[in-house]
């Protein structure tokens, strides 16, 4: 039986359909999860998709953090049991939930940026990056207005020292992120937050490449390797 990967829809989620498509193209079964239901439906992993949950009111991700579904998701993710990938607004929600350190702030340009973006994979040991090799450069999509990753120097140093920087921007920093950080993971490697959108680089027809698919196939490999599943 293939892995079942939940995709959460909050009010204002936009890339939920796209994340579900990427999950399906990777060979897993996408399962739709609703923000208001405190029910993970027994999924093996969860994607928090991009968008403007709750209209980005207050702060991006600040209100989504309190959704009933998150009360189930956060403890499971924090324990290391449940793999969670947060993309763009999903990354912001993970930071607001304190599953990941730091915060995402307005782009240095003060403008929304939509562009094809090269990333370098720095950590191929997480639940979501096992199918890549370290140092590999991949072309995906970046589209965000509040994508500048910030944290205090001590936190940044710790992230670097413990290998928790997952991907970094290559070929110019598009948004002012500290140390060119595009994605990070937690200490267990099960929770990954990405500002760029790998789910928009899964079909040659519609994306700049298919090099984003690896995040979604990685979770299947991770499951197959017998790692903890929804403990």
């Amino acid at each position, binding site marked *: 039986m293939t892995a079942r990967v939940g995709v959460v829809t909050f*009010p204002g989620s936009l890339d939920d359909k796209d994340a579900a498509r990427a999950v399906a193209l990777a060979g897993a079964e996408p399962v739709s999860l609703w923000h208001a239901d405190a029910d993970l439906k027994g999924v093996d992993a969860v994607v928090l998709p991009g968008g403007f949950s709750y209209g980005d009111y207050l702060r991006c991700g600040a209100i989504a953090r309190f959704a009933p579904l998150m009360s189930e998701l956060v403890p499971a993710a924090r324990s290391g049991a449940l793999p969670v990938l947060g993309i763009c607004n999903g990354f912001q929600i993970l930071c607001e939930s304190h599953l990941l350190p730091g915060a995402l702030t307005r782009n240095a340009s003060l403008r929304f940026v939509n562009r094809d973006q090269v990333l370098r994979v720095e950590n191929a040991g997480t639940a979501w990056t096992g199918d890549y090799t370290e140092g590999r450069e991949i072309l995906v999509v970046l589209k965000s207005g509040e994508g500048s990753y910030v944290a205090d120097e001590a936190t940044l140093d710790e992230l670097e020292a413990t290998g928790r920087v997952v991907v970094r921007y290559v070929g110019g920093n598009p948004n002012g992120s500290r140390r060119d950080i595009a994605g990070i993971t937690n200490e267990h490697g099960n929770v990954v937050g990405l500002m760029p959108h790998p789910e928009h680089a899964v079909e040659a027809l*519609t994306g700049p490449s298919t090099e984003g698919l690896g995040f979604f196939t990685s979770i299947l490999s991770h499951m197959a390797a017998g790692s903890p599943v929804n403990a």
Partner: protein
Amino acid sequence: MSEVPGLDTVAVAHENPDTPQPYAELGMAKDEYERVREILGRRPTSAELAIYSVMWSEHCSYKSSKVHLRQFGEKAPENDALLVGMGENAGVVDVGDGRAVTFKIESHNHPSYVEPHQGAATGVGGIVRDILTMGARPVAVMDALRFGPADADDTKRVLPGVVSGISFYGNCLGLPNIGGEIGFGAGYIGNPLVNALCVGVMKHEDIKLAQAPGPGNKVVLFGSTTGPDGIGGASVLASATFDDESHAKRPSVQVGDPFMEKLLIECSLELFEKDMVVGIQDLGAAGVSCATTELAAGGTGGMNIQLDRVPLRDHRLTPEEILMSESQERMMAIVEPSKMEEFLAVCDKWQILATEIGEVTDVTAEEAARGGRLVMTWHGETVVDMPPRTASDEGPVYERPYARPASQDALQADDAAGLARPGTDAELRDQLLRVLGAPGVGDPTWVTQQYDSYVRGDTVVSTPHDAGMIRIADDSHRGVALSTDGNGRFTRLDPYAGTQLAYAEAYRNVAATGARPLAVTNCLNFGSPEDPGVMWQFAESTRGLADACLQLGTPVTGGNVSFYNQTGDVAINPTPVIGVLGVIDDVRSRLRTAFGSEGARVFLLGETRPEFGGSAWADTIHSHLGGLPPRVDLAAEAALGEVLAAAAERGLADAAHDLSDGGLGVALAESAMRGGRGVRVTVDGDVFTALFSESGARAVVAVRPGEEEAFVALAGSHGVPVEQIGVVGGDSLSVTHPGGAVEVPLAELREAYEAALPALMSGV
């Protein structure tokens, strides 16, 4: 007297027939006011006056344009694909597989001048609701923008605001922005154009209409609460020329909440899917006035509304203000009583406020003959009792006088052929780079990278290619392509031909992606209809579009007119923006503009004539506008379109790019830069004409190696002139001609092309 102090009820109107009324301040002419009195057999209440003033405004009634717009129906080509024609919120065309597409373009020009960010944002919101109202899921947006000179101070205020507004609203809705255009010109200072297009996809059986059948059915208002924003927007803002006091109109611009609109879209689509509405209308210009009169007129003709039940965000609003408010993100549905509970449950799921404010009523035969009967009460007292059809469908119609301006002859006699041409290869090279970097020709990335083009994952082609293309469903390879084009310079020189050229360019852009053009929408941006010269431009323009659509078999499915784009006596160059929608059976065969294969032979399709009137070259190098625009040859456009579609279908082409602004030189440079590959071209005749002429019905095609013969035969079979002009390769654009040669490295092309907008917007 009324129980509510100061309330102008129908009874009060009867008792005080001679109370002076502010019809003129509401933008109404005296004879229009007299007609209202005649219809009602008494003076209108202030609430009724509010309804008539907004519904009979130029913006809502098309009173100056109607007599000309009729041609789009009268000259409509036979076309089985048209499922819903003009008159509804948007036209609907069949694209095969049981699926249909609805699309429309609409202006939000005046609000975008007053408050660029919110004006443009709510322009997107409004057109998206029009598409949703037809029963379709909105799937993509585009926009056509015009601003004053790029280096003008006010452009630095208006352009970034407009772009951020479109970006903020469209991105937050999760709709990919797949294309559009941007242009600059002196006349647009003070009169920017913001034309937003939306396209939606649905199944045939899902089409919804603005109607209110079935007495006893409930009238439900859902979405945002009603506030004081946008009051008078329709009658005052959109229908009058700006004067020095326009800053005082700031509160008339609506404020958008895209998050609410996103919820409204998802909520409405779920309501449609569960078959819970029998009629639906969005609230745009003229708000509740428009929705109630149009729904009632489209149904039994009868409706009772309790206006005091409308949920307010400012409890002080009067009935008149509620009727005129243009608060955004509101919809009105007609719901059968048995489905009300379930309807409200769906709204609750999406956290959407829904309020029953009235019901559909029966009318007597006599009432029906008068135009139905719409009654509105305010805390139990009747403030409106009128035939709704007289407001929605029977507004005034003007045969505005029009006359070809005397100055037109001198303008056309001032031929661009007399302008100094480059005398040396160095000058030729310099002018090519200047045209390539001209605002309006150069790279629009500063603008377009603020728009999400990827969301929904169905974008197959987008900016900067010739048209946008989306896959219409996950389980299908079918797609639609869209392009909007308009050229104010051509239209100024000859409104009839200029409009046909705009249509031809959009048609060609769609064809250059491999799609077959199917249907047309339009946004007609002009000066004051009270100026006979402007009205002549409008008459010529509509005649040109109707004739062109008839000849090429693409019906006009809907559109929008924006008048009064002028400052004082000076009108903008007439700018009809034409949107063409095409269908492609298999999106995997789509063509893009980038040269993709080293060694591919490059062919020029079509005939090049020395035509420079209104060209980007004349404008950029000489700041000249005069003479005649390029000749229109619609049969040649159709033949070219066939060749491009067939070349895509048969896999003969590696890249294709239509020739328009700037001509062949710009097209080759763009294809080379986008593909990261140079091109070597040889020109036999006059190199200046070859590079800068803007003759229509032309495209460059890079042919897949080995398919050259088949491609030439294909062009020949459609009677399209075809000539091999060069080869893809190297890292420069090189042009060899009988008198010499010009070579520009790709890096230098990029520098010229990419520098213009960022430099102008630096520090903004």
